[in-house]
């Protein structure tokens, strides 16, 4: 299907231009170094949901390989979630030896190397053989803190020792646009992750347009979505748009069963969404889901009855940790449980179709055959990301 309004987004956002874009930002180690320092070490980055840390002393260890760092976020006895480098104050060992979630028992976080023990506010609680040290100032031996804040139940950290903006300021109009969706009620989460051999922007770009749906998703979503974008919004460094349901097609038997038992699925058809969406989102009857990108690398997609996210965390210029998570409400009966599973595996399969392009794209770009790429009007979010990154690293 041709876009009904050619050039609509270029006209709305003339500052982004319409010309080809350079390939260099996807391949250059020097460019990546600047992205690391000026984007990923300066911006707020999502690390967890509050539901992952339901009780005091629950923690999660998150790797940031681009910064050679691991961050511990931990819920305190005062209910506040704080972040620290996973680096012991004694001789620098990792305090927690594995990534993912855990619970610190009564004593606190205990470094396995020599048993230094930390409380949930990062303070040193005990040092074995303390008397054998020389004038040890325990007050200054806490874990190194990292700026940490929570928005709508999403936990973010900022690796800048003095962040230029609070999380609320950083999210700005995007935070207001996405606020109020009942994220906290979707407590059934299923995560898929892998390391992709491509630049983080190659991966993120593939999820930032709908131009590919007729080709890449001809298998899993025949007649599922149209290539048109709805209501593109550029909100500071962030951006958002609606993705459309396509017309027509009747679902085969199991797809139809799934749609009947629950409508909380990206694969649903013919339902007008809107009831739980925030006021500014999804007001067009064709709206299937909102594709919102919290700069630099966190994609939040909300629809009636569920939401799903993607995160593309760079490892180095050529490698990216991808994590896709689908969040559902607890099923009320077996029919809903079945329906959630159906929608979930179909979307997993669509993600397998999406990720199939990324390593080939990156490898083919590395040949040096092309120095630029062509973007159509519906690829405006890709153009915006490149524009924002470039402005930031040259600032």
């Amino acid at each position: 299907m041709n876009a009904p309004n050619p050039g609509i987004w270029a006209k709305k956002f003339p500052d982004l231009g319409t010309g080809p874009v350079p390939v260099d930002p996807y391949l250059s180690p020097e460019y990546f170094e600047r992205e690391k320092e000026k984007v990923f070490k300066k911006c707020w980055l999502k690390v967890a949901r509050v539901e992952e840390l339901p009780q005091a002393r629950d923690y999660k260890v998150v790797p940031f390989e681009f910064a050679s760092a691991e961050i511990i976020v931990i819920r305190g006895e005062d209910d506040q979630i704080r972040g620290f480098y996973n680096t012991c104050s004694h001789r620098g060992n990792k305090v927690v030896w594995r990534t993912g979630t855990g619970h610190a028992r009564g004593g606190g976080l205990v470094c396995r190397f020599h048993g230094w023990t930390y409380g949930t506010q990062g303070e040193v609680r005990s040092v074995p053989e303390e008397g054998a040290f020389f004038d040890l100032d325990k007050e200054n031996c806490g874990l190194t803190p990292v700026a940490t804040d929570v928005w709508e139940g999403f936990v973010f950290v900022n690796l800048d020792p003095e962040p230029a903006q609070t999380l609320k300021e950083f999210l700005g109009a995007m935070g207001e646009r996405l606020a109020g969706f009942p994220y906290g009620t979707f407590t059934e989460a299923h995560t898929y992750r892998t390391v992709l051999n491509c630049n983080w922007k190659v991966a993120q770009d593939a999820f930032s347009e709908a131009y590919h749906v007729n080709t890449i998703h001809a298998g899993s979503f025949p007649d599922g979505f149209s290539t048109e974008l709805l209501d593109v919004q550029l909100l500071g460094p962030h951006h958002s748009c609606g993705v459309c349901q396509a017309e027509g097609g009747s679902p085969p038997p199991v797809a139809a069963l799934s749609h009947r038992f629950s409508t909380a699925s990206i694969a649903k058809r013919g339902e007008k969404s809107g009831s739980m969406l925030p006021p500014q989102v999804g007001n067009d009857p064709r709206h299937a889901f909102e594709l919102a990108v919290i700069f630099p690398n966190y994609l939040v997609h909300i629809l009636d009855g569920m939401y799903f996210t993607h995160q593309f965390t760079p490892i180095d210029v050529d490698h990216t940790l991808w994590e896709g998570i689908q969040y559902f409400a607890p099923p009320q009966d077996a029919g809903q449980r079945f329906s959630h599973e159906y929608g979930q595996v179909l979307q997993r399969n669509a993600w397998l179709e999406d990720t199939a392009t990324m390593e080939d794209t990156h490898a083919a770009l590395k040949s040096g055959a092309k120095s630029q790429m062509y973007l159509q009007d519906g690829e405006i979010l890709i153009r915006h990301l490149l524009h924002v990154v470039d402005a930031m690293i040259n600032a």
Partner: protein
Amino acid sequence: MTATVADYLKELEPWVETWGVMTQAEREVTRRNATSADLQAFYDAMVPRMEGIIEVLNRYPIDALPENARTLLNLTLALAEIAPHVEFYNGAPGVPYAFEEERFISERAHWTRL
């Protein structure tokens, strides 16, 4: 006479060991190792019974299913796993034109119930 969980498990007995597994990761491996004919046979056994199976399972609270009902639920989740392959991918046991499936690490979060 109203059908029971036991009735359905008896009718579906040839598929219980293969497809009654607990996790999505296990169902995915089972599907990748199956043939097109395996997928079609399981699909044909399940689809006409699905309405009745869901009705029987809905007699129990979803978070307190007896063990045999959990097995029957697992069979419906296995149908969810394989249905796109029968209905959309011409019977291919793998997802066509896709990333290597074994490289996707699949993990159900710890705060979920099922």
